[in-house]
């Protein structure tokens, strides 16, 4: 990211959430640095929108961002938000430190599929296990975008990437199942094709006391779509797919390839293979939260003083 930002000399757009963004307000660029068809623009805008709608206190909602393509979202999120770019995979640990050192805070963690389920898998598990009060987003584009399209733990079976040129043969990692098993108390998955649901989950997560894990399925046209066909996830139909080389095609595919949680109950394993199950998987508001529990321990340690 060294060097100068590409300056698009476009005229000032009227869109309020663009004007509020870091790029818009501080850098005056009114544009993202994402590829055409990328879903991260939607996510950045939704964050800014929720930030404005709920009038979030930037002092209490630090944004901890991992490393991946999505790190650039920091240009699109609200200019007031306090942002820190953590190391690859370590964002949950940084958020833990923040929350525990200042329990009034509710950190919001941005992490990708490689970040959260690959290199930082351990931190993610233990964040969920502790039920630490924070929101963690997993942006799942089933590819390593920043480094140029390598296979991720979430890459679908049979998909091509630059490190799986003969198609992916490993089992897929499911962030939601992992979060459920680890003990996160608010777990949901949605896609960028369902922005309103995403906003709903985000707002709910901000009110929730405990770990909220929200996975967002998002398209990567440049490295995933162009190499793969839209029959992924519908292998049981035996159709020949078409290349997904535009954002529209990928969003269409994501829509088609996601199954609502209630619907999924009636589907066979074969039908669900390579599909994304979306919806709210768990919401438990009465589970003990880590920083509150620690405050209780502190009281015990302090005795009656």
């Amino acid at each position: 990211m060294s060097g100068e930002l590409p300056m698009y000399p476009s005229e000032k757009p009227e869109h309020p959430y663009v004007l509020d963004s870091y790029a818009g307000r501080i850098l005056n660029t009114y544009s993202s640095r994402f590829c055409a068809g990328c879903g991260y623009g939607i996510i950045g805008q939704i964050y800014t929108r929720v930030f404005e709608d709920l009038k979030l206190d930037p002092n209490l909602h630090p944004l901890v961002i991992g490393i991946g393509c999505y790190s650039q979202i920091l240009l699109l999120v609200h200019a007031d938000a306090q942002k820190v770019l953590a190391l690859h995979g370590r964002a949950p640990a940084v958020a833990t430190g923040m929350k525990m050192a200042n329990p009034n805070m509710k950190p919001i963690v941005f992490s990708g599929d490689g970040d959260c389920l690959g290199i930082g898998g351990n931190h993610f598990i233990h964040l969920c296990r502790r039920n630490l009060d924070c929101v963690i987003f997993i942006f799942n584009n089933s590819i390593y975008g920043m480094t140029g399209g390598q296979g991720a733990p979430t890459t679908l079976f049979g998909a091509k990437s630059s490190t799986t040129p003969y198609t992916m043969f490993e089992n897929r990692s499911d962030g939601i199942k992992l979060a459920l098993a680890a003990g996160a108390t608010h777990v949901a998955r949605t896609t960028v094709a369902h922005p309103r649901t995403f906003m709903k989950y985000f707002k709910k997560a901000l009110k929730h006391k405990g770990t909220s894990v929200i996975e967002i399925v998002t398209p990567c046209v440049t490295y995933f779509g162009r190499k793969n066909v839209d029959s992924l996830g519908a292998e049981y139909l035996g159709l020949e797919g078409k290349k997904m080389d535009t954002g529209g095609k990928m969003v269409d595919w994501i829509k088609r390839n996601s199954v609502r949680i209630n619907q999924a109950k009636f589907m066979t394993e074969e039908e669900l293979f390579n599909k994304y199950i979306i919806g709210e998987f768990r919401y438990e508001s009465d589970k003990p939260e880590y920083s509150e529990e620690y405050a209780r321990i502190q009281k015990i340690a302090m005795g009656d003083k």
Partner: protein
Amino acid sequence: MNNQNGKRFLKPGRHLMMGNEAMAEGAISAGLRFFGGYPITPSTEVIEHLAKRLPQVGGVCMQMEDELASINSVMGASLVGAKAMTATSGPGLSLMVETISMAANLEIPFVFCDVQRCGPGTGSVTDPHHNDLGLVRFSGNGEFEVIALAPMNCQELFDLTITAFNYAETYRCPVFILSDAYLGHLHEVVDIPPKEEILNKVIKREVPPSEEISPRVFSYLDKVKNEYVIPKPPIMGTEYVPGMFLHTPHGPEGILSPDPFRFVQTMVDKIKTNKDKICLTENYKLDDAEIVIIAYGLPVRVSYRAIEIAREEGIKVGAFRLITVWPFPDEQVKEVVKNAKAVIVPELNYTGIIAEQVERVTPLGTPIIKVPQVAVFHHPDDILKAIREVAQ
């Protein structure tokens, strides 16, 4: 333990403490609020002691899932304004260097206790070995300077931990305390100073008054005075923050800098130009010494014993002690070795990491005798032998 009272400051006076506990108590006195650690022999007593003590004083002690998480949680805590620390040993340090390098970049202050053990690899877990210094001074990718302090007894483990926190606040770089397996488990008396005395010394973490807040929250070169300005560490959750904490080459405002050269220069030179304030040293019977022993940490004590015996034999020998091991005090050492007949460097490692530095500043022709030792620390006779040899 008898030496706890549930308060931040222990009762002034003499306390019998284990080295690791003394270090932990020093940290609490310095205002430690967050400790993230992972148990590893021989540093375990630090986390054990803090797990008991920190909640008593309203702090947080967390046992994280691994070393990577420990150091990152420490960084997170430091970002939101808590004085934070971690403690580990060699293998743990190897895991943590990634984040140390990042913390150096973002100038996030924290203190790092390294209770060194015998390596390489898993090595021998309960034996002292000063083999981490090489890793400490280049701890991570990229170029930056760190500060490393080497205490030699429990009293100093307490005092220097407070100094380490002050250095971290002032110079905004990773500060290491180099203890070792032997020192960490040594029981000695620590003389705790009165509360006021400690509080006078301690530099607080706080947001500067609003009229002093400038957008320049990272170090930069003041071109008029030609010296480096190191602002107070920014605190997330207050108004005193940069636009973003971006771990790319950044300017004083935190936004990415078009000039990585100047950025790296700042990271290195902000410490180097302040060497005279950072480097603590101690002279021992050096006034008439012909033979000079240069040492740090535990071997210093062994040297003192050897000097005692050698002086009885009429050999004029003295010791120069590095309390700050890194940055290496070139100028002072140069002065000390200038007229020496010979220099002896007893080090608790084989390669002689500091001996190399001494070689760099010693005039050609002055013999430098390394006295290496691994896993057990020197017997006074080891050093005496070297002294007698060069005295002849």
